[in-house]
């Protein structure tokens, strides 16, 4: 175990050197948002995109957008938002404005930044307050998704789920959003396989959940995706709209969305900093490996990735209590004693990351159109979860292989889990695994293999390892994938981002 942590630490430190020397368009758009820019131009293009593009096109983003915005504010004597609107209208070119004193610029920035950071802290306190006031469900938390594509239908579905016992609601994103290099704007009603993540949608759902939370007397957490080409911006939106959980993985985008790895590593760092500071629990995406790889053979890659995600989280200020490391119940039903291996893995993860609210994903790839059997597969998943005391329990849907959940699917899944968790509440405490039995040996084997893998990766370096297909059997090149053009080498000490210090300090206090 220690070997694993050490190797993962080494891997992350190496990568971190690269990360700290770079920024990206999306990091800078996030900064623009943090400084107060929101909204779209007459064409519907988000203002953060417009201001950052303007500077990038001039090749001057290496100083950081904060510098240029503050300079503009000083030069024109308007608010950041007004400034951005003007840029949108084509009336202002940020890099053409007269340069203001660097001291003044930093002051202005610091002032704006502190305001936003305070707002984020307020949201964090509000969450803590509501948790104190209303309380919360027992762990494992019951986590369900809504994915109608229409935020208003999502609200209906989410509130119903909460009344049925859900503790966490995740609004699934529309297909394709992760590859958009901007964040859509406003309330949306037409997504595919999910609903667009927009600030307005966050707000609508947050309000709806707070409402129903009051009704059921239990705080309800809201989840969205801090993932894709706009990771840091979504982190900002989540922080400001009091999301509680964010899908946020250090490598998912690279492997599963073919997003450039340099871009992802830089983006995830700043986004995690924001998540960490906002008290948002991140959910990592190791479960995704098992949707393509074999769960028995690839179990150790899940564990290895969890160790890497843990280290990346630690360096960006996310405490263990906010690390929802992911794994999944994905062993084929055809395997004799497959459940024993699932138990071994679940228990192992639980023990290695004792403080982390482990995110446990349900069976997906072996779900079929036989919804009746699907209920059984999900029941055993529920059994494994309660026996090993997982933190965040994603409910499997009987219709997994068919459609995104209907109202009744969610009700049936919640009823399934509620029953299993209740009737088996303390089963885990009653049972001991046989010394040297199948379960214990399997756990030992997986850990050993993970250690081996991590040491190899530490030797190679993470980027090389990924390019050699070490994760998910997929190989990605450092210069390949989407979004590379948004990666910019910082102009060393000239680069300015007032938030890094604020967020990282916040953690030390």
């Amino acid at each position, binding site marked *: 175990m220690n070997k694993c942590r050490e190797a993962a630490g080494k891997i992350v430190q190496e990568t971190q050197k690269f990360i700290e020397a770079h920024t990206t368009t999306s990091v800078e758009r996030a900064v623009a948002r943090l400084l107060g820019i929101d909204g779209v131009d007459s064409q*519907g293009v988000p203002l953060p995109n417009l201001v950052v593009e303007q500077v990038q096109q001039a090749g001057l983003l290496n100083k950081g957008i904060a510098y240029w915005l503050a300079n503009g504010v000083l030069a024109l004597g308007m608010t950041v938002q007004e400034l951005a609107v003007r840029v949108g209208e084509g009336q202002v070119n940020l890099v053409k404005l007269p340069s203001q004193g660097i001291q003044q610029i930093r002051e202005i920035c610091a002032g704006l930044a502190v305001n936003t950071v305070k707002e984020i802290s307020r949201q964090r306190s509000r969450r803590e307050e509501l948790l104190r006031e209303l309380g919360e469900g027992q762990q494992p938390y019951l986590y369900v998704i809504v994915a109608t594509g*229409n935020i208003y*239908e999502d609200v209906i579905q989410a509130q119903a789920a909460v009344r049925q016992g859900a503790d966490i609601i995740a609004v699934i994103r529309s297909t394709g959003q992760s590859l958009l290099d901007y964040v859509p704007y406003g309330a949306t009603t037409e997504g595919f396989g999910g609903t667009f993540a927009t600030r307005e949608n966050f*707000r609508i759902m947050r309000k709806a959940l707070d409402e129903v939370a009051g009704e059921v007397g239990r705080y309800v957490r809201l989840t969205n995706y801090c993932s894709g080409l706009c990771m840091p911006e979504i982190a900002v939106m989540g922080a400001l709209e009091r999301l509680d959980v964010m899908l946020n993985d250090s490598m998912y985008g690279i492997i599963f969305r073919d997003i450039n790895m340099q871009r992802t590593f830089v983006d995830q760092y700043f986004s995690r900093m924001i998540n960490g500071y906002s008290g948002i629990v991140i959910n990592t995406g190791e479960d995704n490996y098992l949707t393509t790889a074999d769960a028995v053979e690839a179990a150790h890659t899940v564990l290895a990735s969890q160790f890497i995600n843990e280290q990346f989280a630690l360096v960006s200020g996310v405490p263990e209590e906010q690390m929802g490391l992911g794994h999944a119940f994905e062993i084929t039903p055809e395997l004799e004693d497959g459940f024993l291996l699932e138990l071994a893995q679940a228990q192992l993860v639980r023990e290695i990351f004792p403080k982390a609210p482990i995110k446990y994903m349900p069976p997906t790839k072996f779900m079929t159109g036989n919804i009746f059997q699907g209920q059984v597969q999900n029941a055993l998943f529920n059994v494994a979860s309660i026996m090993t005391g997982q933190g965040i329990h994603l409910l499997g849907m009987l219709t997994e292989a*068919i459609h995104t959940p*209907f109202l009744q699917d969610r009700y049936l899944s919640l009823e399934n889990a509620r029953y299993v968790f209740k009737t088996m509440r303390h089963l885990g405490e009653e049972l001991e695994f046989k010394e040297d039995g199948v379960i214990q040996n399997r756990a030992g084997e997986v850990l050993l293999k993970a250690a081996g893998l991590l040491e190899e990766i530490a030797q190679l370096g993470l980027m090389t390892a990924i390019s050699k297909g070490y994760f998910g059997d997929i190989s990605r090149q450092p210069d390949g994938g989407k979004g590379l053009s948004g990666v910019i080498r910082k102009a060393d000490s000239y680069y300015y981002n007032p938030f890094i210090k604020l967020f990282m300090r916040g953690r030390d206090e």
Partner: protein
Amino acid sequence: MKPGQKAGGLINPDQKPEGLISPDLTRVMPYGDSLNDGAVQLSFTLPVPPGARAKEAARQLAEKMGLEQAQVVHMEGIDPRFTFFVVYGRSRHWVDYSIIKAPQAVKQVMSKQDVDAFIRTKFGRRLRIVGACIESDAHTVGIDAILNMKGYNGHKGLESYHGFEVHNLGAQVPGAQVAAKAIQVDADAILISQVVTQKDIHLTNLTKLVEILEAEGIRERIVLAVGGPRINHQLAQELGYDAGFGPGTYAGDVATFIVEELATRLETGTEQKGG
């Protein structure tokens, strides 16, 4: 989608589209994840071997049932001659909920105290009840739940009421025996339970009892009610019973019905018994 394109329709966030939450009650359709999407799940077995033709047969059947875009999401040969299907589709059908009536035996359930008080004042004597699970049916849990002291789910049974004298004859009681007992104790009401419904045996048994009671000339004199998991008020009335009670019934429901019904009969002069 380019930045210029909007992600979905831009909607004024303060103006919640009302249609989403207030369906048109004159045209109620199934709901999956969007209002009026008509989402329905079906499962059935066809006596044909699995295969592309079987799947198409299942789809056509679903279509005949009024499903649009019917998707056979699961097909499994469960025997060389039989195939099981799970189908999802969008029902074309709707119902006018606004005009639906579902008459119940009782409108407002009285408390035990109120029933007892009502009996004291209106009748001035205890009402005599004969109860049984008749003919081949041996499922007494339901009738016991209504009659026995202990009751069900915290609702005490009729035996616990001061106002009732209860004769619970138990399981598999022939109709003739029910009639005989009713005559013997001069019953005010007969309560019947029927649980087994295979091949409509309950309908046969219940009809037979009415005929016996009529033949004995006591049908008009007594309040006759029946309960069971597949019984409802309407069905019971069609079978010639005064009332029917389904799942989730408690003693209070039937107690209320009995006293109200007897009171009405008393007022209209159809009740003839003394104390």
